[in-house]
């Protein structure tokens, strides 16, 4: 998974020359007894891919929909491209593109008819064929939207979000339910969009997606942002440890915790993960332990910590439950 050229540069000094794309200050939203958004504040810089990572029900979608002007907030302020969303929703909507979590399409219309319809909603819009080419649906141009595959449907949905040359694009879980190949190709599309200078706000519960695509990630849990930084920085800040995962019967967690360098032991479905600060020492101790028990060691692999580990550490929950 190569990273697009120029990423490092963009990470470095994007904020200096531009006002923020989005400013969210103290946002609150309650549904009945549930405080869906509980005082969220953050800033999205122009040109960055900003990720919101969290499990279902964390408040990501609600937050994004308030920013898009789709629902009112109970409290707080949202400034998009210098405009107050609550006061000028239409002006904001002219300049943003939105993809909802479920692709909302008219199944009987063809791809080109749908794109032309959405183009007509905006004062300025690209030509339908330009957008269709941008998302690589030329061969599906005259097919009904209802006959497209899952990946093609998501591409069409993104095409509709790009039709007005938006300055910010919101993608809500764009790859959920897609097969790995479709996911990879959609990631490529998102990288192309970003290369055009469009700010992307991406919600996801796939940590690989966030790690690969996002310049910065906000980890959202129970209506709050629990951490916000570049993916690598988040991992570095919360984990000096490396994860060693394997299957091994007949050893107690206490024995494992006592191994040299081990900071934390996590057992799930018979799979043991050791978080260690000293991989060689822990590996040596582990192999000694295995030899004395004469037990079979299976499925051993060593990996650096991921956003998933960060999320687990910060919230005590998995991203997907």
């Amino acid at each position, binding site marked *: 998974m190569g990273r697009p050229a120029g990423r490092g540069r963009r990470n470095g000094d994007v904020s200096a020359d531009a006002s923020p794309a989005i400013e969210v200050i103290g946002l609150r939203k309650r549904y009945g007894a549930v405080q869906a958004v509980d005082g969220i504040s953050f800033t999205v810089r122009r040109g960055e891919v900003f990720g919101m990572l969290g499990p279902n029900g964390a408040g990501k979608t609600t937050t994004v929909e308030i920013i*898009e002007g789709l629902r009112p907030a109970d409290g707080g302020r949202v400034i998009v491209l210098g405009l107050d969303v609550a006061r000028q929703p239409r002006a904001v909507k002219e300049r943003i593109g*939105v993809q*909802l979590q*479920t692709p*909302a399409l*008219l199944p009987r219309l063809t791809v080109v008819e749908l794109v032309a319809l959405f183009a007509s*909603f905006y004062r300025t819009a690209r030509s339908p064929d330009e957008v269709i080419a941008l998302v690589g649906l030329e061969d599906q141009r005259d097919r009904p939207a209802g006959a497209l595959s899952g990946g093609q449907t998501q591409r069409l949905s993104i095409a509709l979000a790009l039709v007005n040359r938006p300055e910010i694009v919101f993608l809500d879980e764009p790859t959920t339910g897609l097969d790995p190949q479709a996911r990879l190709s959609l990631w490529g599309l998102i990288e192309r969009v970003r290369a055009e200078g469009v700010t992307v706000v991406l919600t996801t519960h796939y940590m690989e997606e966030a790690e690969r695509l996002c310049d910065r990630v906000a980890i959202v849990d129970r209506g709050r942002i629990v951490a916000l930084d570049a993916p690598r920085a988040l991992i570095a800040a919360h984990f000096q440890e490396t994860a060693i995962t394997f299957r091994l019967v007949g050893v107690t967690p206490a024995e494992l915790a006592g191994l040299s360098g081990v900071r934390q032991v996590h057992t799930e479905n018979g799979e043991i993960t050791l978080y260690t600060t000293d991989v060689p020492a822990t590996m040596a101790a582990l192999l000694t332990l295995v030899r004395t028990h004469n037990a079979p060691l299976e499925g051993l692999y060593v990996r650096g910590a991921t956003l998933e580990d960060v999320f687990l550490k910060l919230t005590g929950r998995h991203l997907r439950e």
Partner: protein
Amino acid sequence: MRSFWLLTLAWLRGMVRERSTLFWFFAFPVLFVVIFGLVFGRGDVGTYDVGVAVDTSLPAGAALAEALRGVKAFRVHIGDEAEELKRLKDGDRHAVVTLVPAPAASAVPNPAAGTVVVYLDPSRGAAEQIVRPIIQQVVDAVDRQLSGRAPVLALEERSVRSSGLRFIDFFLPGMLGFSLMQSGMFAAMPLVQLRVTRVLKRFGATPVSRAAVLVSQGVARLVLAVAQTVVLLAVGRLLFGVHVGASWPAMIVFVPLGSAVFLALGFAVSGLARTEEATPALVQAVSFPMMFLSGVFWPVENFPSFIQLLARVLPLTFLADGLRQAMVGGFALYPQWLNLLALAAWGAIALLLAVRLFKWE
């Protein structure tokens, strides 16, 4: 404005490309009309059994009997007065006409002078309403003929109108009203679909106005209604020779007004339906009783009075009656202004319901 037309076009394309829409809104009513037309079409709704008990030896009696025989809509039975009146009571006659000659000592020295007495059965409402004016007209004509006065111009037109009405003439406008109701109320289907699949929400994320989205849906449905009207009128005219176009201005008022009333009801129902699957059942729950109670298949007057009370105020009753008068110019239940007013009132009620019940998400 461009977005408005593209939206309208999008809804129309959605309808036309959906086979079930085409079936329910075109094939189904046409099939109904054809089947009913073939089964009942020849049986005239306007054929009435009229007993005539007059002394044909009198010039007036002979002229009256002959004139009544000349009415196409009547099956005339010449007979004895007591016998014919008994038949009327048994329900074998729609009316009995007798002639009571003027007493010999009358001041009027005309041997033909007398009083025509018409016995009618008020429980057979439709028959009474149709038979009475025809007899009245015949009596007038005979009277003029015998007294040697010139006939009135209106006479001929009225006799054509009252003689030609068959069941299909009654049924076709009712079926049109029913179709307009169905296509209006079934707008609930795409509306629920748009809500459930979040298309309405997706539109909400663009600058397009909510009014444009809803009004375009209404316009598309109106186009559908006009298409239905044209198809049904063509089928009626070409297959069964139904006289259409008694009043085109009234058609132009009633078709869109009726569509609008039921469209608003459709919007209201769409707000009540939680899922796409539940929608047709809800629509049918409202439209099915109306189909049977609103005089689509038979005159409202045929119902027992307690059902009539309800049937007479249903929106489809007013629409069907209005369309009937506008199309074939007969079977009037209400005056047209009342139909118009009642439909407008129903429209206002439906609109209020729609505004209260319609949901975007």
